């Protein structure tokens, strides 16, 4: 029997510490041993929940994507129009542009099938939400006759692309520029006017 027991950890402890270590080190340099060290436990305690660091990153990315979509739904819940809902979705995207976990997920996805599937599922959920707003806006006559799926794909791509730029501190793409550019693009693609962004 060990002289002193190492602390037991739960699933959320592991994901929580990964949320600190992945931005610091990157997924390529992170091991379960690193996570165990940070939690002051042994690797077996971490391995009880996750087989490798990639699984932890996938869990973290899912939490973050789900949080974003839940928060967006919450902010849009009281909006009277689909135009307002889309504006709030885009505003949240620009405000919550931090893309470190997303970039690390992409990097892992290029060599890891579970990560690739998780990324696809997250991207699909993101696009479906935007497409749903566009379809509803077309039914109410707010948006023009475009393909909702195509415009959702475009807006989702622009959001992720500008998020990368803003996260990497691109001097040409501040969060403010990201927001203004996304709103402009959505206005032109959907033949709609958002009006003032001040809320």
């Amino acid at each position, binding site marked *: 029997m060990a002289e002193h027991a190492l602390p037991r950890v739960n699933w959320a402890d592991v994901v929580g510490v990964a949320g600190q270590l992945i931005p610091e080190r990157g997924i390529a340099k992170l091991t379960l041993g690193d996570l165990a060290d940070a939690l002051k436990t042994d690797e077996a305690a971490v391995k009880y929940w996750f087989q490798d660091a990639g699984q932890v990153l996938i869990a973290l990315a899912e939490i973050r994507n789900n949080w974003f979509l839940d928060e967006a739904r919450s902010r849009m819940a009281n909006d009277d129009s689909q135009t307002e809902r889309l504006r709030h979705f885009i505003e949240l995207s620009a405000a919550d542009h931090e893309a470190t976990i997303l970039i690390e997920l992409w990097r892992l*996805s290029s060599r890891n099938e579970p990560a690739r599937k998780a990324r696809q599922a997250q991207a*699909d959920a993101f696009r479906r939400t935007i497409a749903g707003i566009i379809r509803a806006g077309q039914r109410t006559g707010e948006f023009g006759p475009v393909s909702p799926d195509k415009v959702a794909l475009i807006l989702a*791509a622009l959001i992720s692309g500008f998020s990368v730029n803003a*996260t990497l501190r*691109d001097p040409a793409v501040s969060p403010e520029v990201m927001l203004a550019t996304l709103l402009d693009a959505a206005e032109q*693609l959907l033949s709609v006017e958002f009006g003032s962004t001040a809320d």
Partner: protein
Amino acid sequence: MNADETSPERTALLDAAEALIRAHGADGWALAELADRAGVELEAVEAEFETEWEAFCLVMRRDEERFESVLFASSAESPSEWILALLEACVPDYDWTFWIELWSLALRDERASALRTELDERWRDLIEEIVRDGVEAGEFSAPDPRRAAITISTLIDAMALQATLGDTTVRPNYMLDACVTVCATLLGAPLKLPSLAEANDG
């Protein structure tokens, strides 16, 4: 460094470095592994590249030059044709693996951040020049050509990275269609979707 940047030996080493980066990431291998893979002595590798980072930079730049050579081989004449040629060049050649590696490194490494900025600026300058030519020729109506260029380059990056990761929606024809739609909208130009004779749309 070898003075002959196009020597067969150097080309073979860059090919081997490309394969290692694809398999292990930009920073997941050592020069000794590159020597093994290329079947040469470590000294021969060190004569070409001082560090793994230098090799990655050269691979990245070679990849960009390859892309530009595809683009500049186009017979496009008008700004509208150049924009379409640019989009078409991205579609069959949409492997953004090295860019994904660079973005990840740039989160924590100033050298990677500087390389990413340099290559992005070059890419945006190229698009901006086409947009400005189009405005001058009366083909485009973009009030802010730089902003249009940044939006177009960002869209291409995001679409191509998703295609690189095997996205089930972002197939070549759909990617091209979406990019043409955005360019036509942003530039106020009736761009016609080119046919993709050689792209495999699955």
